[in-house]
């Protein structure tokens, strides 16, 4: 199952809820302001590093770029995809839930 999140984890609880209500092994795609969750050295980096071991975490490249976040700044294990990759994730998983 694919879960998308579009809110900054520093501003709203959507990312937390996506972790709480997704099964282990799910795919989580961070889009829009949720891409900030992928940042190394943040106050929530520990939670995200833990999540990388239980979920497959993806981040949308066009949204990373718009916000000036370089790939080197991301937590290891998070995978970068474009809009094509977003479509592929939606095809690969049989259902999609958007945490707004």
């Amino acid at each position: 199952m694919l879960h998308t999140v579009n809110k900054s984890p520093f501003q709203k609880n959507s990312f937390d809820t996506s972790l709480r209500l997704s099964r282990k092994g799910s795919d989580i795609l961070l889009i829009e302001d949720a891409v900030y969750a992928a940042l190394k050295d943040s106050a929530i980096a520990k939670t995200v590093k833990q999540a990388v071991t239980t979920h497959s975490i993806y981040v949308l490249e066009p949204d990373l770029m718009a916000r000036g976040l370089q790939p080197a700044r991301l937590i290891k294990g998070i995978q970068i995809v474009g809009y094509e990759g977003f479509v592929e994730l939606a095809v690969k998983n049989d259902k999609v839930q958007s945490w707004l």
Partner: protein
Amino acid sequence: MGAIKKFMYINRTAPYGSIYSLEGLEVALIGAAFDQDVSMAFVDDGVFQLKKGQDTSKSGMKNFSLAYSALGDYDITKLYVEKESLQARGLTVEDLMPLTYEDQDDDYQEKPSIRVVDSEQLADIIAEQDVLLNY
């Protein structure tokens, strides 16, 4: 149109502060006519939608809370409320409207629609759905 699908409406917003919950309820009521397998989840501030005793007389907004009572008549009888969300907000199930439905398979007995589940149970229920809409 083929097989029946599992539709779940996931409610995560409080009432009145934004319109999502009201317009989300409108979707659920309209959707009931389509004979799909429908359930609703109340998570995060969504649990506040079911709070008893809503009174909008002083704020001038439309009080739509009574419409939740109609869900049973529309055969929407599975309202999952996340235990962790209730607890974090200092609420118990007694704070919620006593929503019920008549069970056609059990001599039309009146039964509670609200089912309190924990996060792990709800994650499993969500994973079983086909179509997920969010309000």
